[in-house]
């Protein structure tokens, strides 16, 4: 999409299984310091764990301002103006950089990578880094006790006539 280079932080095995927002935030914070980043942009909430924590934790670890649930972002010198999607409507804030932003669905319409950029991307460097190289401890502070699947949806029944339907509903005590 036009980035100059990438960094792949390799996490595997048990560390990968127990990786959560706290660990990712620590990695992000360490990288931000190392690369002297001015802006960190993250998703607001992942669909696997629904945590909505990584952006906020990263900002806290770095002591940076945060603009979360951003549906509009504009840079203005050393500041960023962020319009946030909140329950009550839209909130506009101005924060200093460096800052952490988390993206809301309405931030933009995703584009496809163009062929020229795909071809150039093949030649761009992706550095491989281990969390230990960044001085990050990935030990989880959480113990997952249980994961239950939602109850199986029971199969329905087909009826031929409206009378049948009423009879079945009476049987089930619904009418």
């Amino acid at each position, binding site marked *: 999409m036009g980035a100059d280079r990438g960094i792949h932080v390799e996490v595997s095995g048990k560390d990968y299984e127990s990786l959560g927002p706290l660990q990712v935030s620590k990695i992000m914070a360490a990288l931000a310091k190392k690369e002297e980043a001015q802006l960190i942009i993250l998703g607001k909430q992942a669909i696997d764990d629904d945590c909505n924590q990584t952006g906020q934790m990263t900002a806290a670890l770095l002591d940076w301002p945060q603009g979360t649930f951003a549906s509009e972002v504009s840079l203005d010198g050393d500041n960023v103006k962020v319009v946030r999607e909140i329950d009550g409507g839209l909130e506009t804030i101005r924060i200093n950089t460096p800052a952490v932003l988390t993206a809301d669905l309405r931030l933009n319409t995703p584009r496809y990578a163009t*062929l020229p950029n795909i071809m*150039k991307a093949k030649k761009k460097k992706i550095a491989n880094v281990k969390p230990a190289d960044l001085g990050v401890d990935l030990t989880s502070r959480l113990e997952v006790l249980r994961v239950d699947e939602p109850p199986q949806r029971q199969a329905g029944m087909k009826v031929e006539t409206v009378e049948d339907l009423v009879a079945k509903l009476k049987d089930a005590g619904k009418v």
Partner: protein
Amino acid sequence: MLRCYRHVKGFLKPLAETSRRRRTSAPCLSEDHIRRFISENTEVVVGRSLTPEIQLKLFTPNCRFWTERPELWPFTDPYWAIYWPGGQALSRYILDNPGVCRGRAVLDLGSGCGASSIAAKLCYAAHVVASDLDPVSAVVTRLNCELNNVEPPVCVTDDMIGSDPAGFDLILLGDMFYDEALANRLYRWLDRCIKTHCTKVLIGDPGRALFEGHDIRKLLHHVAQYELPESVREENYGLISSHVWCYQS
């Protein structure tokens, strides 16, 4: 004249349809086959670049391979199918400064679609050699020369980097600093060319991170800057302008 191209990955559909047996051995493809394949898979693009006066057969969003799976492309990566912003700036500079090429022996290194060679020809260069490792680039360059009514340059597929460039007054490099290993080889070789033959080197680059951070950058002087048209910016996210640099002793 039949030319054989053995640098083929996968298989070429029309060829496979005519002979199943040939799929198992390296197919030998004629220039005509390749010309037809190129014409079927590119569009003639006029305008939408820094050099609207040069027509080129390129990939556009209307072409199959703009969105097709890359592994189905039967040749090496088609760098010639894109008019790279670095090459655009270089060609623009040549056309705007015809004295640069007039009467000179010019080497277009990494010629791709051949645009810079065409620009040099249009400015009455005495002799133009278009060099590209990809043999399909040579076919495309000849096609593009026909489109623009210029005599084709001499097309070579040998790796010129490292060779002795005696006989060239000017070396053109359009958007060649996108790979670190290649950039380092170019740097060492160009340095020798300049020191031993006083060759002039013109480099077109849109400000790629690798180029901006490379040692060679410190030895160049800036000769031109062009703002990229909107269509080029859309196809090359992150690039806004393209520049021409001169490397001279």
